[in-house]
């Protein structure tokens, strides 16, 4: 009886969610259509719709037919006084009777006082206010200072972690930030953030985090760009993150990038326990470098090397690992290829693999893409296997805004020996202005 009541409640919740989803979907598209077509709110509307469908066998060898619809849009008025962002995702599998809806973005930004005050509200993927980019349901206010070279702001809201098939958990979050960019051909960019966060399962232990970041481009030989980012947990005194790096450009055809990082996270950090805390019980150190050279306008090569070291078990058992990757990219007028090789070594095992992607433009409206990957892995569980994946698709461009892909995949692994899939993709891209 209790189980039936729970099922009934879940069905009712699902129906209500679908109704809300449908209403929001129609409303936001209609609103943006009206805004874009109104002569009194001239601006730029950018909209992308992506529809994905696949017919395949699942891991249980039963047929499944997942369908996804992602719709993202941005409207910006000509004077930039009004900006609206929206993004939703809808999923349905009629074979399995599954469906889902997610509202990723729905936010509005308005310049209340020209060149001085900006207010914003809604659900946003925040890259400006919060210490780490995350989804927030928030209200915020920002202020320009010093001839718009400086900006300060404050915000309050709920941090969301949107995941599969679950109601979005949240944490109360608020903070302030300040940033400054010098007016120079080689500017200095500095930013500081302070954030307060309270989790529902630990209301008596709020988290206080501060972040300081710097970026400076230097003129002269090699045109170096220097970066520094730090994040400190003020209530525990733990240095969450410290990253330093530099990008060099010895010639116009060569770039060289280096990064050094230390990272630590405790199980109580975040709305959910961080994935990091599953594998590491202490501080991680990482060093990486990448070099890329354009041998000719059509041929580019890249190589990268990374080393990581972290605490596997307390008190002082550490593990390390390396990552090596190499890429070769060749692009002609009608043909293109990207070849990649990778090697991973860690406490979990070794991986050796290669990947080839191929593109051929048949005419202005039709092109062919294909790819294949072969991976051999040796896991700590003594499993030694290989996996193959391959795909091919025909891509049609029509009516100036649509792109349709029809193709298939063949994959083989120890999970499914013969995995055949049919895949369809329809993209509509609109850039419209009034």
């Amino acid at each position, binding site marked *: 009886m209790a189980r039936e009541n729970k099922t009934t409640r879940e069905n009712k919740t699902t129906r209500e969610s679908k109704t809300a989803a*449908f209403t929001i979907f*129609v409303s936001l*598209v209609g609103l943006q259509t009206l805004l*874009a*077509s109104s002569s009194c709110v001239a601006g730029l*509307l950018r909209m992308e*719709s992506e529809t*994905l469908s*696949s017919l395949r066998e699942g891991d249980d060898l039963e047929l499944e037919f997942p*369908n996804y*619809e992602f719709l*993202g*849009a941005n409207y910006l008025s*000509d004077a930039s006084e009004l900006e609206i*962002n929206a*993004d939703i*995702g809808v999923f*349905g*599998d009629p074979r399995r009777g599954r469906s889902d809806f997610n509202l990723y973005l729905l936010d509005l930004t308005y310049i209340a006082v020209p*060149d001085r005050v900006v207010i914003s509200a809604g659900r946003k*993927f925040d*890259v400006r206010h919060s210490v780490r980019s995350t989804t927030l349901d928030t209200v915020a206010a920002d202020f320009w200072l010093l*001839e718009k070279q400086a900006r300060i702001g404050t915000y309050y809201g709920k941090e969301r*972690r*949107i995941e*599969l098939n679950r109601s979005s958990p949240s944490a109360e979050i608020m903070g302030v930030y300040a940033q400054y960019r010098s*007016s120079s051909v080689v500017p200095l*960019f500095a*930013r500081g953030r302070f954030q307060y966060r309270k989790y529902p399962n630990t209301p008596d232990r709020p988290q206080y985090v501060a972040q300081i970041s710097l*970026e400076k481009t230097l003129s002269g030989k090699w045109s170096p760009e220097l*970066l*520094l980012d730090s994040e400190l947990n003020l209530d525990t005194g733990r240095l969450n993150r410290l990253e330093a790096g530099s990008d060099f*450009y010895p010639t116009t055809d060569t*770039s060289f990038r280096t990064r050094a990082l230390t990272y630590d996270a405790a199980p109580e950090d975040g709305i959910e326990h961080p994935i*990091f805390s*599953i*594998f590491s019980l202490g501080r991680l150190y990482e060093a990486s470098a*990448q070099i890329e050279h354009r041998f000719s306008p059509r041929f580019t090569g890249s190589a990268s090397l*990374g080393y990581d070291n972290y605490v596997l078990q307390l008190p002082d058992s550490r593990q390390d690992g390396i*990552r090596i*990757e190499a890429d070769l990219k060749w692009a002609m007028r009608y043909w293109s290829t990207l070849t990649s090789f990778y090697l*991973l*070594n*860690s406490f*979990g095992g*070794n991986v050796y693999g290669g*990947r080839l992607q191929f593109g051929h433009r048949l005419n202005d409206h039709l092109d062919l893409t294909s790819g294949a*990957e072969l991976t051999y892995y040796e*896991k700590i569980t003594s499993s030694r296997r290989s996996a*193959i994946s391959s795909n091919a698709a025909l891509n049609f461009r029509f009516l100036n805004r649509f792109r349709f892909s029809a193709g298939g*995949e063949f*994959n083989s*692994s120890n*999970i499914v020996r013969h995995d055949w899939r049919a895949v369809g993709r329809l993209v509509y*891209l*609109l*850039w*419209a*202005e*009034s």
Partner: protein
Amino acid sequence: MTIVGIGKTLGIAFLVACTTVGNAHGLETGDHSDHALFDHALHEKFECAGCHNFAVDPKTRKAIPNEKIRDTIFRKPLKEICHECHRSAEVRYEAAPKTCYTCHRNVESLNTIKPENHRNIGWRGSHSTEARIAGDTCMNCHMTAQCVKCHTQRNDISLRNHTRNFRMYHSVQARLQPHRCEACHTQSYCANCHLGGRP
């Protein structure tokens, strides 16, 4: 399936309606050149000499030699004449819109002004540092829906972030760089598979 079917049908219909309705109200959706969009009427309130090598006689409205001519105009590439106002931090230019897509109003035009570091093969996997430090600079060209596409959206059809084989060896990768998964995932995502759910 019903919600997806209705949603797709109405969505495409509305999107096509954007084009149709917008055209009826002056919304341009036709081909653009690779150059930036420029509205001369909007700029007529400024001195002609700011961009041109002549002045305008206020009585006859004819072009005349400009005594204040700045020979720097001759040496500047076209884009620097635009950028003098639209990429300047000086207070006299603060009203000029600074976002790139103010003028670069189509994907082709925006691609021509892509920063050098975006052309790196490895940029997609290494943009996090710059985004964390100066993420709002990205918004000069990008919209946040593009961040959401990789970081938040979930689908097991497109191979946007991981290849199909990654499922087989992700345990090795996770034990190599355990901090990197958190850019997009939470423990719930792991539990969804490892506790009997679907990926």
